[in-house]
């Protein structure tokens, strides 16, 4: 425990609630919120594997790297083309952040229907301070994790999406976070807020992509409030740079008859942790929490999720699949809690991992905590290597080995990609998966020349 204060120092030292570049620097309540955040963070310290919730993940990069806040120069780093996940944005709404900095010149907010408000955190703090005051920190609050506290103290960027009652946004909104374009290690803390009114509908795709080789620590928090009968799709692709540490906390609340669907693809970053919790607060609420992780090298990826069934008649479905190569390591912790009297809960969870290499490691902890009797809950977890019989089957039909291996990885991951209900996004994410695979087609060429 004696080493902790020095680990916290860089963060605490660089904390200044009145820093001029911070959004809402002039708001007294926000200053107080930030101050509470840093105090709580200091009290809690950085998470260590001694905490049950961090048993399998050690924040090594935070122990041995000194991250600086982003400077103007970092934030304005040159960006020639925007690395969009979805093809040809056309009129598709799109926000772009570089090294945590807003880059409004790349933004497209054009085609949104009336009643949809997509703005930066800066702007909303300026234009609707009372509205946001009521909402910020309600889902990721004072008693949340230490990294949420750090984000609350440091939040320096982010977006706010507000969809009014009954308004539906057809096209996915893409939010791109570009990282890695700095010469020295930087830290930034995006804070996003998404509020869907009654019967509203929207889809957000967050694309966290590393372009340069610089080290960075991105500590995002997103609070999501899905109103009665609303439908929110939350997609995320994490293709961070080799030296990135990516912490992404999502806290969602789902009201009566509303649906929260999410998919998270992790394919890059030295260390990543996706910590998601969803509260099903109204009858008829449903959540689908899906994801895939494809890791190689010495990457470490942690998906820690919790679904709380708080009232009767709520359902959840969770499918995660992973492929681990080289010395990579992944963690999946999935907790389903059925609270007292939350009868007729239906919860399903599955986590499957394919180990491609001898050095890879997977740690899984699916967890059911159930305090109501009339429920149907199940989870399953498997780990194993590639099915040799299937491999032989493909090869015996003439498919070259490298391609056959790719096909089987695709087959394995494909099942979970089916869970993505938005077709454009599914296609884009499938492409990411295919790109992650070794270049088998070239191998096939070589093979032909033989």
């Amino acid at each position, binding site marked *: 425990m004696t080493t902790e204060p020095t680990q916290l120092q860089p963060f605490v030292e660089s904390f200044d609630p009145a820093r001029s570049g911070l959004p809402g620097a002039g708001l007294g309540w926000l200053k107080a919120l930030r101050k509470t955040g840093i105090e709580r963070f200091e009290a809690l310290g950085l998470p260590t594997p001694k905490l049950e919730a961090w048993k399998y993940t050690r924040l090594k990069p935070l122990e041995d790297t000194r991250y600086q806040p982003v400077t103007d120069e970092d934030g304005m780093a040159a960006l020639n083309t925007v690395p969009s996940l979805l093809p040809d944005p056309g009129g598709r709404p799109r926000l772009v952040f570089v090294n945590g900095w807003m880059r409004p010149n790349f933004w497209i907010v054009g085609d949104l229907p009336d009643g949809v408000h997509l703005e930066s955190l800066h702007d909303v703090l300026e234009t609707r301070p009372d509205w946001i005051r009521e909402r910020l920190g309600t889902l990721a609050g004072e008693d949340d994790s230490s990294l949420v506290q750090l984000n609350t103290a440091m939040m320096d960027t982010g977006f706010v999406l507000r969809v009014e009652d009954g308004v539906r946004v057809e096209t996915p909104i893409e939010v791109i976070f570009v990282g890695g374009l700095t010469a020295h290690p930087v830290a930034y803390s995006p804070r996003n807020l998404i509020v869907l009114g009654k019967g509203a509908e929207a889809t957000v795709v967050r694309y966290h992509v590393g372009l340069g080789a610089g080290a960075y620590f991105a500590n995002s928090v997103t609070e999501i409030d899905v109103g009665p009968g609303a439908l929110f799709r939350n997609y995320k692709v994490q293709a961070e740079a080799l030296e990135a540490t990516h912490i992404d906390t999502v806290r969602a609340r789902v009201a009566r008859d509303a649906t929260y669907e999410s998919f998270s693809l992790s394919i890059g970053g030295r260390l990543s942790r996706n910590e998601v919790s969803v509260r099903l607060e109204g009858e008829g609420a449903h959540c689908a929490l899906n994801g895939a992780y494809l890791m190689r090298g010495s990457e470490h990826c942690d998906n820690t999720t919790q679904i709380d069934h708080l009232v009767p008649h709520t359902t959840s479905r969770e499918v995660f699949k992973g492929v681990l190569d080289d010395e990579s390591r992944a963690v999946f912790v999935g907790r389903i809690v059925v609270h007292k009297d939350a009868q007729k809960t239906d919860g399903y969870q599955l986590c499957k991992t394919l180990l491609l290499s001898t050095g890879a490691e997977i740690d899984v902890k699916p967890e059911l905590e159930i305090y109501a009797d009339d429920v149907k809950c199940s989870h399953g977890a498997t780990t194993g290597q590639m099915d*040799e019989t299937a491999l*032989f089957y493909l*090869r015996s*039909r*003439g*498919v*070259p*080995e490298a391609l056959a291996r790719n096909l089987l990885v695709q*087959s394995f991951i494909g099942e979970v990609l089916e869970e993505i209900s938005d077709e454009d996004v599914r296609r884009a994410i499938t492409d990411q998966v295919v790109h992650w695979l070794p270049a088998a087609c070239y191998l096939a060429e070589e093979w032909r020349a033989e």
Partner: protein
Amino acid sequence: MLEIKNLHVSVEGKAILKGIDLSVQPGEIHAIMGPNGSGKSTLSHVIAGRDGYEITGGRIIYQGEDLTGLAPEIRAAKGIFLAFQYPVEIPGVANTTFLKEALNAIRRYHGEDELDAMQFVKMMREKAKELGIPEDMLKRAVNVGFSGGEKKRNEILQMAILNPRLAILDETDSGLDIDAMKIVAEGVNNMRAPERSTLIITHYQRLLDYIIPDKVHVLAHGRIQRSGGKELALELEEKGYAEFGEAAA
């Protein structure tokens, strides 16, 4: 077409095949019969090049070439097709995609142009129709949720599309009702050609009522115990395998 000479094969140190000799000429259909566990599937796997089998002696010559050491996909490209006794389920990979990949890989091997999606789908539909395979089965993932009979028909469809030189059918008749068996037999008979050979592995003679073999071999104790014409199958049907020291299952 296929010359097997004194083939010895072990699995995990246990000798399974103990000196198989077999010679199949182009255009011929041979039936290999034998009790359960006699090594029939082992023989088919070894010809197709599956890992995990140790060839402790002998050789497999296919079209004048020793197959030893060749990868299964190369053997497939050279025209060897195995209809599996237990076809494998591959969730998430559509039948169509899979077959197109396979066919084009084989075409590439021979320096032929790949078929585009349109050409391929057209051909696949035709073949499927001939075999009475419904469209939706083509779109579904490979063998996933197929009944036993559907799986076997799917194997024959793949055979029809990949157009092999040497087809090996491992217990393709088991689990089929009489109508399905007729369809499978018709598929095989339609493919009968002077340059193609077929090995039919079975332990009932039923299928041989519909596909008339040129030769019948009895495999037991890891060796071909007897060879003969199609009448041998009938004899076996009557007497069982008792003569070879094992009961038919």
